């Protein structure tokens, strides 16, 4: 069993690096990370990057957010729209084995400008 969520976020337009604040109609807060419930997996099924040139890093912490490791980078070369989706398999899977497994999304830009990301994620126990 699982829950699908569509998540939207954007760069702040004024900093060349930063962490996305995540918005969704599935939840009411705007966290800058997701703590995966213990025993579940977070699957990212698709990501759309729209706007100015931008690298989007998918980052994972195993220590409750103190240290993050980048597990995937999505690169938008120039102002455009980039859709990443793999047929019948997620573009990234992060498993949670403790209460300290976090996922974060960060941006890196050469010139600060507004870029939007939209993701379909799934939180699942299989």
């Amino acid at each position: 069993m699982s829950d699908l969520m569509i998540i939207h976020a954007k760069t702040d337009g004024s900093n060349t690096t930063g962490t996305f604040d995540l918005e969704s109609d599935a939840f009411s807060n705007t966290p800058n990370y997701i703590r995966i419930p213990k025993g579940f997996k977070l699957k990212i099924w698709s990501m759309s990057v729209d706007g100015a040139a931008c690298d989007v890093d998918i980052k994972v912490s195993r220590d409750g957010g103190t240290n993050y490791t980048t597990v995937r980078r999505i690169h938008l070369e120039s102002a455009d729209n980039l859709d990443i989706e793999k047929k019948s398999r997620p573009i990234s899977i992060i498993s949670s084995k403790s209460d300290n497994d976090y996922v974060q999304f960060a941006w890196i830009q050469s010139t600060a400008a507004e870029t939007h990301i939209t993701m379909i994620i799934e939180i699942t126990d299989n």
Partner: protein
Amino acid sequence: MGNESVVDEMGFVREGKYLCLIVPAHEKILMFRVVQRKNKGFEKILYGPLPYSTGVVDGDSVFPSASDVWKIPAYVSTSGDRAEGLENLRADLLGDIFYIPVDMVDMLFDVHLKITPYFLRHVIFYPEGQIQSGFRDVAADYDKDFGFYNGDIRYVVLPNTHVAFRTYNDSNLNVYTNMIIEYANYKVQNVEDEAKAEEVLRKGNAKIETLPYIYKHERVETALSNYKLLPLDLLENARW
């Protein structure tokens, strides 16, 4: 979903068939013949958010609180998105729509809750005041990694029993919740004869389900006193 001649596609017992409840607290079984399904054909309630407040369960929090529980009330006055019409129930049912008065011994509810998000953890109180989840002798509450339900919760409501829950959100997301309820309102006859019960079980004419009742509570004991508990070993030759 079990034997199709005994249960329908939703897992509810067909009229004329039997419901066998294993009662762990007594190491006995209870058997009922389902005489009638009073809500046959309209088993669904689109309940809406979990009751109380906004229905949002905050991240890393306990709902309604670490010391409180939620039942299934008819409506909550602070919110307008509850199941329309339940407010017309009798006054004594407004706080728990599946409550059965103690003297209504021929009535049971078979309840299936489908709660999203699926990852929320729910611990059950059967009845309110007595948590039932655990591992061996260790009682489990919201802060344990065992003894909880995710998403789907099935239980049978005995008379005199307020079933209640406590919910924990192990993520950091303040999630909007939704609950769809499927239920069967059974008119039942208690099977008191061991030979009859053994025959029913042997022929596979019963849906067998375990009551979430491990630790005794006086309200449930009162309800059980109106029925004949039968030996657990009648299950030995049961067709499941």
